[in-house]
């Protein structure tokens, strides 16, 4: 497969977190010799126990943190504002701007994504219709329920119509109905042509939608597998134990 057909590539990436104290610096290796390829058009789940490096890998792809060594390619390019324009990101449980309404948040995110006002308005209508946000789009985000906030969060990631969508624990804190809705949204987005990369703790949920999964252990992929119904949990436990 050509490079241009890859949505995300990590080549021998290492990331060490350094924390400075008064007289010493502690180092924690988050990723080591981390290599992974994710194809365009697929739903790929990054699985692993806490501290396995899932969020670190995502943050590296988004240029929120920088690698110590190795190479990262997002849609065939080095992570930069230019390529980030084509990526949407849903972080895990962020504290959204509580005093802004969803409409104001979308407007701000649209401006920061470089959209003109007509495109922003059209995009706002598109995401509102897709995620049925009409009833609370003008409500302050701080007054919205967890389920509503998760939909707002997904909507802000879609406002610039990205090719690649990265979701960090998208089911976190949702009730069973919310989880089911989120799963349907993800599937629809993928059917519509978007590449989906998601991290998750929920093996059963991942199994329902992922085409492939990467199971991380100790900062590198222990296994990259095609997901087969009924086998993911077994594969996961084998990989992490």
């Amino acid at each position, binding site marked *: 497969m050509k490079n241009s057909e890859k949505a995300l590539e990590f080549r021998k990436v290492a990331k060490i977190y350094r924390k400075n104290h008064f007289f010493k610096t502690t180092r924690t290796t988050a990723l080591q010799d981390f290599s992974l390829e994710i194809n365009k058009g697929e739903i790929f789940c990054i699985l692993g126990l806490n501290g396995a490096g899932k969020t670190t890998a995502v943050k590296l792809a988004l*240029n929120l943190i920088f690698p110590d060594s190795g190479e990262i390619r997002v849609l065939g390019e080095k992570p930069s504002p230019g390529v980030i324009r084509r990526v949407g990101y849903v972080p895990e449980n*962020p*504290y959204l701007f509580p*005093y802004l309404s969803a409409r104001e948040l979308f407007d701000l995110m649209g401006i*920061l994504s470089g959209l003109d006002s007509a495109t922003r308005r059209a995009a706002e209508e598109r995401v509102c219709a897709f995620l049925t946000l009409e009833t609370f789009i003008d409500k302050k985000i701080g007054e919205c329920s967890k389920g509503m906030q998760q939909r707002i969060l997904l909507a802000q990631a879609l406002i610039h119509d990205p090719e690649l969508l990265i979701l960090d624990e998208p089911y976190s804190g949702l009730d069973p109905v919310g989880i089911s809705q989120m799963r349907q949204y993800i599937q629809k987005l993928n059917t519509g042509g978007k590449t989906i990369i998601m991290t998750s703790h929920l093996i059963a949920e991942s199994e329902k939608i992922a085409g492939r999964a990467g199971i991380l252990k100790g900062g590198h992929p222990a296994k990259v597998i095609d997901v087969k119904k009924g086998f993911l949990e077994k594969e996961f436990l084998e990989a992490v134990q």
Partner: protein
Amino acid sequence: MKAVRNVAKYTLLENARSRSFSLSLVFIAFVFVSAFVFSRLSEVVEIRAIRDIGMGAVQFFSFLTALFFAVKVAFVEGQNKTIYLPLTRPVKRGEYIFGRFLGIVLSAALEIAAMGMLLTLLLLIKGAQLDSFYFVSYFFILLKIMMITAVTILISLASTSQASAFIFSFLVWITGHSLGEVEFLLDEMSPAMVTLVRIFKWVFPNYTLLNMTDYVSGRFMAQAGYLPAVLYAFFYAFAVMWLAAAVFDKKEF
């Protein structure tokens, strides 16, 4: 520039709606009314007391709210992941932080204007004669807030805890107000201490140069012309923000 303008606009909107902003306005109003009531105890200094306590309260509370907003933008939003949303957009990090800075300064201007109107009303009820120094003083309070906001953003970006960001910024505020007093002690200091004070005068914001609320220095500034002090405040704030943008650009979240 469009990104800067809109980040500033939404920062202002967000701050103006926040609970801490309304709370600070209520507190200042309470201080004004207290000054109004207590000043009746001494009729001679009645107007002077309301004016001095009132202006002091405007400065102190606008400092506290600016401090709170600056630490929130540069430290808390990194901790609670709010910052991931704007930073995963094709916007330069420097533009984003500069927009946030401008938004906080505009919020401070709004707060100072609201409180200034209330204080002016109270003083006019008391029959006070208000000169131009009184009105210019509000602008100089805003300049001070602009400088401490820039410093707090820089400190917060380098801090490892919210508490240390608050404490160091508070110390800078106090040091900035004390630099003028230290000047009088230079003759009694060792050469090393004199050098240290000179360095401090460059590094810390020298608020003595902007102390319009002080009657004597206010008149001295009026004689010398306001421009050098205004230029100093802008130069200082923008230099610190340039440094903050450089730190923010390299910061990992």
